[in-house]
């Protein structure tokens, strides 16, 4: 019975992947490819323009000479620059993934009601909770895992591209690559996925609850309700009753409901993180990002997320469009 339940869940997730292959798989792959091609074109353009103007940057080995003269501090700066190049190639993929997850959640339950295919899914022995949770798993695990893998691949290619270009200017590629930390970057990104899941829950829950509840235009409801509440709270200074500013409401309620499913949102929201490690990339390390686990913000969000998912399950069970 247990294996059957697990098997069912696997197929439910697979079903979501079939339907949303474009967003989950092709969007990150194409974004990564476009980013790399643009970069390559940029590098080629720079090389061509450089050559035409007779600038032979580092051709006689001065570049290598410069590197050999660097002390440990400078070296770590080069490494950081390379790591940033790697992170940056991932950033675009994650922005795209954020949009994919946002709209996936909004449509996840609404679309099947609109095209009436919900009647087919409901003719099978699948409970509403299994189904909705498989959708949550698709948004918070399948999408980020694929995006992360695509991001790591793009990042490594980006790193190689930079290194090979520099090698044309007399820099030792291997020495350079040793300065970067591709494994650490990859490890940080993969390790971030569970944290992403927890942080994204209130947003995923809110969007899916709207998707399950709205008779029409879930997008409008999902945006309008929190924003209108935020405006009311601001105008009437309601948060003053709790000794909190209206800004607190926008940041901790409105933004959490709408934008938490964008990867990296937790980094921006984590004040401590921004203040530690200003001048290096250590703030991306899991030892730093995971101290969010100690914040009430995260766990209250998880609770609200779980409650909203329960609401979505209830509406999927009982919503009767006649």
């Amino acid at each position: 019975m247990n294996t059957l339940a697990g098997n069912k869940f696997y197929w439910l997730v697979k079903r979501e992947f079939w339907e949303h292959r474009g967003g989950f798989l092709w969007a990150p792959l194409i974004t990564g490819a476009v980013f790399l091609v643009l970069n390559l074109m940029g590098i080629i353009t720079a090389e061509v323009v450089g050559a035409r103007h007779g600038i032979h940057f580092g051709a006689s080995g001065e570049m290598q000479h410069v590197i050999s003269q660097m002390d440990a501090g400078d070296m770590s700066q080069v490494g950081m620059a390379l790591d940033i190049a790697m992170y940056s190639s991932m950033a675009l993929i994650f922005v795209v993934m954020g949009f994919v997850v946002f709209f996936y959640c909004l449509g996840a339950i609404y679309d099947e009601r609109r095209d009436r295919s919900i009647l087919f899914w409901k003719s099978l022995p699948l409970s509403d909770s299994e189904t909705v949770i498989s959708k949550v798993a698709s948004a918070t695990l399948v999408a980020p895992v694929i995006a992360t893998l695509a991001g790591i691949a793009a990042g490594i290619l980006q790193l190689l591209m930079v290194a090979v270009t520099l090698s044309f200017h007399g820099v030792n590629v291997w020495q350079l690559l040793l300065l970067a930390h591709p494994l650490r970057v990859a490890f940080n990104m993969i390790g971030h996925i569970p944290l992403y899941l927890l942080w994204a829950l209130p947003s995923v829950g809110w969007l899916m609850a709207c998707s399950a509840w709205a008779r029409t235009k879930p997008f409008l409801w999902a945006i309008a309700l929190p924003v209108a509440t935020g405006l009311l709270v601001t105008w009437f200074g309601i948060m003053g009753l709790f000794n909190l500013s209206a800004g607190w409401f926008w940041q901790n309620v409105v933004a959490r409901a709408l934008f938490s499913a964008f990867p990296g949102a937790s980094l921006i929201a984590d004040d401590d993180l921004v203040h530690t490690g200003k001048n290096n990339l250590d703030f991306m390390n899991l030892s730093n990002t995971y101290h969010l686990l100690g914040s009430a913000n995260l766990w209250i969000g998880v609770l609200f997320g779980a409650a909203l998912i329960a609401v979505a399950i209830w509406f999927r069970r009982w919503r009767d469009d006649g």
Partner: protein
Amino acid sequence: MSAIVTARNLSKRYKNATALDNVNFEIQSGRIVGLIGPNGAGKTTALKAILGLTSFDGELSVLGYDPRTQRDKLMEQVCFIADVAVLPRWIRVREAIDFVAHVHPRFDRAKCEGFLKRTKLTPDQRVRQMSKGMIVQLHLALVMAIDARLLVLDEPTLGLDILYRKQFYQSLLEDYFDENKTIIVTTHQVEEIEHILTDLMFIRDGKIVLDTDMEAVGDRFAEVMVNADKAAAARALQPLDERQVFGKSIFLFDGADRATLEALGEIRRPSVSDLFVATMKGTYA
């Protein structure tokens, strides 16, 4: 015989209308029941209640389960085709089979593939590339491969041409139905299912107005073709309905004495559609 569906005082009210009004009925195992009524009579609501798709008042037991609270268990033994074209448009034939095979414990994959071999559907075809008739073929192949005890069909052939409609009911009878299965079907194309039904239920304004098996229909109702000179005598027997054909009158009687009727003219068994029209007179007035 055991009851598959038992309804006691089943009611469903929407904001401004009563869809089901204290309905009582029982459906036995191994029957093919036609649930027939005009638009808005409550057919779909009754089916939705049986399938646990809507809330209701009163008691309803389907295969011993309460569809409100035990829907997940119930759906292992119940199947339905709610409408044509509810299959998701993105799904491929092969994906649909794979999916159902892995989530439904009573699905027989070989059977389904056998049914599909008789059609023009190919494994890579998507639902959005199919005609309505082909979608129903796929849906029916999936459903018939499930060994369910109760199959519910809500207007399953709406919008299909006559070839697909005939094929649909023929497949159901030949390849699916047996004494352990029960089928409930609603449709407006009464003439086409008349000969396959074992039971008949008429529903009007949320009430069951006729609940009988087909054999009893012949005993209880009679249609008599009466010459003009005997028409007044026939009218005195309070017929359900009267219509004129070629200068003769055709009367429909409910439970009238056979011998009396034979004296009036030639007796026939009424068709379900004539019975339906007579019973539903004035519905839209």
